[in-house]
């Protein structure tokens, strides 16, 4: 199967680069699948899970906290605010963050604003989903 290069970069590091045959991304209007030779696109992503199948037909997951995707047909690049691979996810931390955000949404004392808390809920949920996929 034709493959293309997928790279995920965060502001402070390159999270990973791999040859993949297919991948799906959490775009703002719903999940978006990209095969090789896709039409060139610039897409905004929301917090969620990136799923990709590598050249050996293995399924992998990466959670991101929003970002942007550029694909040119032969390569795809994700600029993620923060990206976590399944080998790196910290379940306890994700649960704690979710709890904290929910407390803020209930109007209890917290350092977060409502918008921040809503974003945090999405981010933490994505990481929890990732942890469960392991």
């Amino acid at each position, binding site marked *: 199967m034709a493959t293309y290069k997928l790279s995920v*970069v965060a*502001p402070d590091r390159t999270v990973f680069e791999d040859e993949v045959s297919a991948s799906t991304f959490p775009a703002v209007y719903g999940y978006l699948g990209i095969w090789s030779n896709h039409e*060139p696109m610039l897409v905004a992503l929301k917090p969620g899970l990136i799923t990709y199948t590598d050249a050996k037909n293995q399924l992998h997951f990466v959670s991101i906290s929003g970002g*942007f995707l*550029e694909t040119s047909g032969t390569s795809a690049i994700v*600029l993620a605010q923060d990206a976590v691979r399944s080998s790196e996810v910290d379940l306890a931390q994700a649960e704690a963050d979710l709890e904290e955000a929910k407390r803020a949404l209930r109007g209890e004392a917290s350092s977060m604003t409502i918008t921040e808390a809503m974003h945090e809920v999405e981010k933490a949920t994505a990481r929890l989903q990732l942890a469960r996929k392991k």
Partner: protein
Amino acid sequence: MATLKQIRQRIRAAKNTQSITRAMKLVAAARLTKAKNRVEEARPYSEKMYEFILSVGSAGELPPHPLLDRRPNVKKVALVLITAERGLCGSYNTNLLKTAQRWLDTQSTDKTLVSVGKKGNLFFSKRGYEVSHAFTVPTAGADLSDAVTLTNTISEMFTNGEVDAVYLCYSKFISAIRQEPKVIQLLPIEPPQLEEGEAASQGKEYAFEPKPEDLLTLLLPKYLLTVTYQALLESSASEHGSRMTAMSSATDNAGKMIGELTLTANRVRQAAITTEILEIVAGAEALKS
């Protein structure tokens, strides 16, 4: 002339100083390597971000956005000044402070400072400038979260009308022995423009989702963050580079001083011995006759 004891004391002092400067040089060298790596690692993201803005911008007129708002009447400007937390790094801080001072002098509007690093804050608050926010960064180098806090602060100052433009003074890292203090405009954002001929080489027709205007709204804050983060990283690399060079020459100087002092000490000792021998010989001669 100093006595032998005094000279020996000075040699000891110089040796102690030398071992301190040598240790500081090694630490700075290690930190510089790390800081350089971080600049390298951050580069793919910022380059890609730049290309994104170019692609989106080439799709049509840029829609109005609070961060692009160019105000005709600039009443107050803010200068973000990145300096080190500590001294002993050669001319690094001085150069930055001088550049900032010169820039501030040319501004006829009201001005306020946002200082990152203790040295800038101390210098300008002592001289009666308004420092509206003062941040400190860990010595190990700025984190992404530091850049986020800084960016949020200045975007807020800009969007709520407290200031009409924001500039950034930082040190561009060229090499371990060369750093260049620079002042750049942060806000309103000057979107990168496609240069003539560049468009042809790109040659890709992108589909956008959501539409370019909305995409841009999402991209701009991230772009600002990237610029500040890059500046923080480069400054910290410059600081360590500058400190390494300064400490290296301090170590050399101490070595030279120890050499000279040892020479003097030997001469003084020799002179003392010679005098003693002369005295004994003279005494013996006197007894003989």
